[in-house]
């Protein structure tokens, strides 16, 4: 399943805060990439990313494709890194203020992208070299043959190489993810206090979006699950249903689940929780307690194949993309020690519903909350 919903434009706080991600960390990252290239016998690595799957180019350059029309290609060689970005010349000067590689613009309304890549190949002296390529399958149908024919000697497709490297977060990345998780949880707290009967779902989501943007989100997504909707069946691990807000007015007494995806300095964290508008009943409190207990149990059993048949849950990796290794379709059994994960749980008990989800750190071999202690309903 996918909750993916791209904005018109990623337009939140855009910067490279070197106090959070120092240049030395970037150097270490690129050293790891070059070590991996050597391990595969590669002289150079080309990486294509678009707005939907932007993690690899963001990892290499700090460029987040902000518009669906504007993909990018990054080139890593043993002694250099550069990028060809399909952006307007007007935008490039600003982009260069927060990326850490040199870049060439390729006007997004023109067809000059392949020619720009060809020029870069020539300039870098890549003829006859062993070239790795990541992201070929992401390219649009018309662009893919134009780019691939620039490599008459062929390329070695290395999809997964960067994804594996990205899975192992550095200390600085973990701190960025902790900050993102803290901010996502703060949004949940504020929106819980704000929710009231008579306001629309859209108004609630607008407020959550506002709180997130004021807290410095690069991007944010707010999704909901209302009481009139079907619950995912117990044991379900593919479908944890959140959906965009609507114009429906909240009643004075209802259960509403809120999902927040918060991107800070490029890194995504998630949180979800129940809001009991008008106050929680005893049954709802009990359901929420059971839900948080199920969440804790799930965190404690990461990496094992067994699933709790009482709850439905959704587990996936987080980082520069909202769904990283282990992917949501792989589930908790694919989790490894050291993963940063989103874990969401939902259940229905005694006629009451409860949702609970947070971003966790699996360093100890079991999931531990990245932030503060769990909250009760």
């Amino acid at each position, binding site marked *: *399943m*996918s*909750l*993916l*919903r*791209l*904005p*018109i*434009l*990623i*337009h*939140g*706080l*855009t*910067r490279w805060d070197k106090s959070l991600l120092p240049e030395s960390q970037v150097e270490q990252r690129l050293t790891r990439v070059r070590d991996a290239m050597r391990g595969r016998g590669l002289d150079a690595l080309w990486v294509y990313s*678009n*707005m*939907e799957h932007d993690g690899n180019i963001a990892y290499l350059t700090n460029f987040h494709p*902000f518009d*669906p029309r504007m993909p990018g290609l990054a080139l890593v060689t043993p002694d250099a890194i550069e990028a060809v970005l399909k952006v*307007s*010349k*007007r*935008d*490039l*000067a*600003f982009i260069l203020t927060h990326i850490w590689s040199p870049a060439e613009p390729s*006007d997004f*309304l023109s067809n000059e992208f392949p020619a720009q890549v060809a020029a870069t190949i020539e300039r870098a002296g890549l003829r006859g070299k062993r070239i790795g390529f990541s992201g*070929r*399958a*992401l*390219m*649009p*149908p*018309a*662009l*893919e043959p134009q780019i691939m024919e620039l490599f008459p000697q062929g390329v070695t497709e290395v999809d997964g190489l960067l994804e594996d490297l990205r899975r192992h977060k550095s200390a600085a990345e973990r701190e960025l993810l902790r900050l993102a998780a803290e901010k996502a949880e703060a949004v949940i707290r504020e929106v819980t206090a704000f929710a009231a009967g008579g306001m629309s779902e*859209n*108004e609630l*989501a*607008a*407020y959550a*979006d*506002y709180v997130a*943007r*004021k807290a*410095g989100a690069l991007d944010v997504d707010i*999704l909901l699950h209302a009481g009139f*909707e*079907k619950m*995912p069946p117990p044991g379900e691990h593919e*479908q944890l*249903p959140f*959906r*965009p807000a*609507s114009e429906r007015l909240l009643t004075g007494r209802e259960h509403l689940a809120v999902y927040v995806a918060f991107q800070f300095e490029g890194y995504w964290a998630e949180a979800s929780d129940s809001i009991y508008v008008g106050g929680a009943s005893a049954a709802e409190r009990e359901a929420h307690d059971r839900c948080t207990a199920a969440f804790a149990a799930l965190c404690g059993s990461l990496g094992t194949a067994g699933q709790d048949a009482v709850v439905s849950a959704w587990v996936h990796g987080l980082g520069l993309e909202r769904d990283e290794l282990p992917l949501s379709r792989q589930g908790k059994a694919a989790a490894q020690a050291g993963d940063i994960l989103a874990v969401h749980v939902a259940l229905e008990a005694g006629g009451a519903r409860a949702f609970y989800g947070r971003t966790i750190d699996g360093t100890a071999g079991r999931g531990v909350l990245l932030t503060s202690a769990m909250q009760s309903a």
Partner: protein
Amino acid sequence: MTSVAIPALNAASTRVDRAELDLRHAAIRASMSTDGVDLLLIYSSPMRNFDIHYAANYDLIGRGAVLALPIAGEPVLYVGEEWDLDRARRTSPLAYVRFEADMATLCGTLLRAKNSAVTALEWNSADFAKRVRAVAGCELRDGTATLERAARRKTPVEQALIREASALADMSFLYALEKATPGMPEFELQAEMEYAMRKNGAVDNFGLFSARKHNNAINFVTDKPIEDGDLLIFEITPARLNRNYSAQLCRTISMGPARPAVLEKIGILAEAQEAGLAACKAGTPISEVVDAQNAVIAKHGFGEYCVPPYMRARGHGFGIGRQELSAANKRPLEAGMALVVHPNQYFPDVGYLAMGEMIIVTETGYERLCTLDRKVYEKT
């Protein structure tokens, strides 16, 4: 929380119902007839979610959705997320809404039909297109131009939604004028503006805003604090329901009294804005709207700056049926097109200034949606 109250517009009320979709489908079918297409698959991936919204009023979430629109008979909407099927049935007025896990196989199977075409495959991956082609067993016919032709002229409901979006943009700018304070970081003011728009019915915003004494361009917001003497330049583009119903406003705020050079250059842009709009009417080649703006700027001695990176474009549409206002675009304007005309421009002495307004083209001219003055707004 904001201390200045957000104005309540009570304007965001237009709905898309089955009659509206029937009107759009009639336009698409006329275009299909012109192109000899009997079945059009209107496909949307997350990268281009607005085609399916136009044709089915479905707000895409997840991997993809497709509307199968035959030249006659009931259209069928297929959504790619089973858990979203109930919502799709609630929000889309279409009679047939189904779940399909394997969109590539579905599209390929449907495209075996004679005279069929599919839109927007370019917004999916090369491998997806290969899978569709393999199942279809033939070369795929691109139906994007067929759909775009139908969508260029906005229906009355689309125009109403765009007017609502334009009102949101105006309100948001005036709200920013009230809220902007020295020391406030750019991203915080953007958050305030965005909240004002979302609270009143916007679902998203193509938002650019920069605050510098000398801006090189309008960019994304940073943590730079707003300072006295800064020029705040904005592209504010709220979307009602979907990006198809977006309206853009471009304006400039001076933090403190505007310098004479700024007043002079804003005057040039206001003149260019007027000249560009004066050229707008059905039948006029789009390039003439561009030329009219550039001629004013050149007349004042800045013709050499009418090229990137000193500007990007002289305007454009939004979402489906989008037009680029470039000197190379000779397509005639059509009544019902919705455009922003913006002579946004860099000047060497004062930097980049913003001026732009949303219009709907008519047979005899244009309807101006913006209600603001063409001036630099001063925060004193």
